[in-house]
């Protein structure tokens, strides 16, 4: 690699070649159609499976006799299966789809090695499946978001390296030498996940560190999966899709993005330790985490101002198409999420909410609300372009949007406000454990109802995807100018 040349061109970027037309976009889309469709299909199957497991877990909380006679479905098994399929099944597949689409589109070159990419995707999903079976068979590890049996780790990692390698090559072969903020976020996500997953696998699974160190590594890893992988991919998608769907550049992209990017990565990578406050580790460890968590306020504010003001400036455009509505939902969820995450990590709040359902609620808000909304919106953007077809039924998309929104709200209230109530009883009083269960019943029910809404949303979107894939093309859909892009916005300078 010509480092000096690259450094030079980083100071004086060459912006020629920014103009494109729909023809070249179609060629790019065609080159990634097959792997992208497999990612989207796997993601939706995992989402539905995951919510079904989540429902079983949630029902068990208020009706413990549900499925109690089957050793395959203990609460302790379905709960980790829910989280792991949600993260590695749904969000990783959807996130990979967004990353591949964005890198190819922004790079401006048709992609090669489709077969290699597809094989990696198949290996990834097979490994997730093996992990789920492993947990049910009783091989689970006691680490949050790393419950998959030990043999799954290396396979998942190999598949990840395959997909990541493909992405890096696509980034490297880009026609436009300059790079857009979305590309940094994606590269950062891929690089960070390879790092944190290796560290966690080595220090937790293969050669477990001693005693309390394991919880530290685990919290560090779990927080980073969100902070350094899921969230960056979501930011990348938002930064790309907002200008594309609203028809205007992102507000403040010249000043904000750079600072937000580096501070987010820096603070995120330390924030996980905050979970260990009051725990069996020296105080400085959790203090570093709390400080880092608080530092996240800076990039979180910058990014949410950017997203929301871009959306509000073009508010009328939000209701014209499917995608921007989901982006709005995701951006609003992000504001609430960061509020609960940052202020929930402070010592005073943690002394109330620690070990309650609060953290699960924050995670649900992050995964279903923030990342989930944005990735769903992105899928409604990608699918018509990949297949050159129009969305079959706006009603289905509406139904999906409102059910998912309703689900996110109910699950978040059930778990976050329920978690606060549970924490106040558990940490702030000596109320009997049975009394806590009784007080929590309504919250448990609310979570179950929220998950039913989320399941309905997932089924509506699956119907749309399926319909879109199998329907015949109409005359209008045979033509190349069905989808009108704004080519000058393909590339929004950063």
């Amino acid at each position, binding site marked *: 690699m010509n480092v000096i040349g690259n450094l030079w061109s980083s100071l004086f970027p060459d912006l020629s070649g920014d103009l494109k037309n729909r023809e070249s976009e179609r060629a790019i889309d065609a080159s990634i159609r097959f792997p992208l469709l497999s990612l989207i299909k796997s993601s939706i199957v995992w989402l539905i499976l995951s919510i079904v497991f989540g429902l079983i877990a949630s029902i068990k909380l208020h009706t413990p006799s549900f499925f109690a006679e089957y050793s395959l479905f203990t609460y302790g098994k379905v709960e980790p299966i829910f989280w792991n399929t949600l993260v590695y099944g749904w969000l990783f597949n959807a996130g990979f789809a967004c990353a591949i689409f964005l890198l190819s589109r922004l790079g401006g070159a048709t992609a090669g090695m489709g077969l290699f990419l597809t094989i990696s995707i198949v290996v990834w999903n097979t490994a997730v499946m093996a992990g789920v079976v492993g947990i049910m068979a009783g091989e689970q590890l006691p680490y949050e978001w790393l419950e998959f049996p030990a043999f799954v780790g290396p396979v998942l990692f190999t598949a990840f390296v395959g997909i990541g390698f493909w992405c890096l090559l696509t980034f490297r072969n880009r026609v436009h030498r300059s790079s857009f903020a979305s590309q940094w976020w994606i590269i950062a996500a891929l690089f960070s996940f390879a790092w944190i997953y290796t560290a966690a696998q080595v220090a937790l699974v293969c050669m477990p560190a001693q005693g309390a160190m394991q919880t530290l590594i685990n919290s560090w890893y779990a927080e980073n999966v969100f902070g350094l992988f899921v969230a960056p991919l979501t930011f990348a998608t938002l930064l790309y899709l907002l200008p594309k769907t609203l028809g205007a550049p992102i507000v403040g992209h010249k000043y904000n993005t750079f600072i937000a990017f580096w501070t987010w990565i820096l603070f995120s990578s330390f924030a996980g330790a905050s979970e260990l406050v009051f725990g069996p580790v020296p105080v400085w460890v959790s203090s570093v985490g709390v400080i880092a968590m608080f530092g996240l306020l800076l990039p979180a504010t910058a990014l949410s101002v950017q997203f929301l003001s871009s959306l509000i400036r073009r508010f009328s455009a939000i209701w014209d198409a499917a995608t921007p509505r989901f982006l709005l939902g995701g951006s609003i969820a992000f504001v609430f999420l960061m509020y609960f995450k940052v202020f929930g990590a402070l*010592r005073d709040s943690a002394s109330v909410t620690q070990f309650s359902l609060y953290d*699960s609620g924050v995670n649900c808000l992050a995964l279903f609300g923030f990342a989930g909304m944005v990735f769903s919106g992105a899928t409604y953007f990608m699918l018509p372009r990949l297949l050159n077809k129009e969305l079959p039924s706006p009603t289905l998309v509406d139904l999906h949007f409102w059910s998912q929104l309703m689900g996110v709200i109910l699950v978040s209230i059930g778990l976050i406000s329920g978690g606060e109530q549970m924490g106040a009883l558990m940490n702030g009083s000596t109320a009997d454990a049975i009394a806590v269960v009784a007080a929590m019943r309504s919250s448990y029910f609310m979570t179950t109802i929220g998950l039913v809404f989320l399941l309905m949303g997932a089924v509506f979107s699956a119907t749309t995807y399926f319909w879109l894939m199998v329907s015949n093309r109409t005359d209008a859909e045979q033509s190349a100018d069905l989808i009108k892009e704004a080519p000058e916005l393909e590339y929004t300078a950063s």
Partner: protein
Amino acid sequence: MNRGPFLFLGLFLILASSWTFLLKQSNEEFGKLTALVDEEQGGLLPRGVKGPAAHGKELYQELGCIACHTQQVRVAAGSDIERGWGERQSVARDYIDQGRVLIGNMRIGPDLTNVGQRRSDEDWHLLHFYNPQITSEGSNMPSYPFLFETREIVGEPSANALSLPEEYAVEAGYEVVPLREAESLAAYMTSLKVDYDLDEAPKSNEVMAEELAVALENAQ
């Protein structure tokens, strides 16, 4: 802007510092602790998990009990001490010999650090696994019927059959016998107790005050 090398360098530095300052430094500080020998408190501390309890620990991991139960006591927050879940803060040394630690971060049920002290009777635990409503009515802990066998009594009833209260009794001529899994798990539960002090482990203010009062009385 073509920031490829700059991007990688920056990411590498940030992740490396997070790894070094947070994980490596911690590992130096509390990841290489050794057991203590204290004859007054009964030998090696912590005491370790042995025998059927070790098998029980594997089952605890397999069934995912960690999803609802923690094994850590805090003195600086919460009401763990008031609830009688422990007498002092859990510290890193308590976990050094546990292999895969089961510290947990969710308390849908109570903490189990000292459950062996609170409930030292294995039969109580067996009844509790068979149907938690027998021992703690209103609990949302599921029952684990697959850890038990309901079988016809042939000749004498088995010595280890559960003595079920009337409203939960199985039909006449049958008995409920715990499988080896249930017995190991119960052994693990009764083995869970932190009945020793460590110098580095802070106690709650109340416990410290009591100890001070006793020490003063003895001194007089």
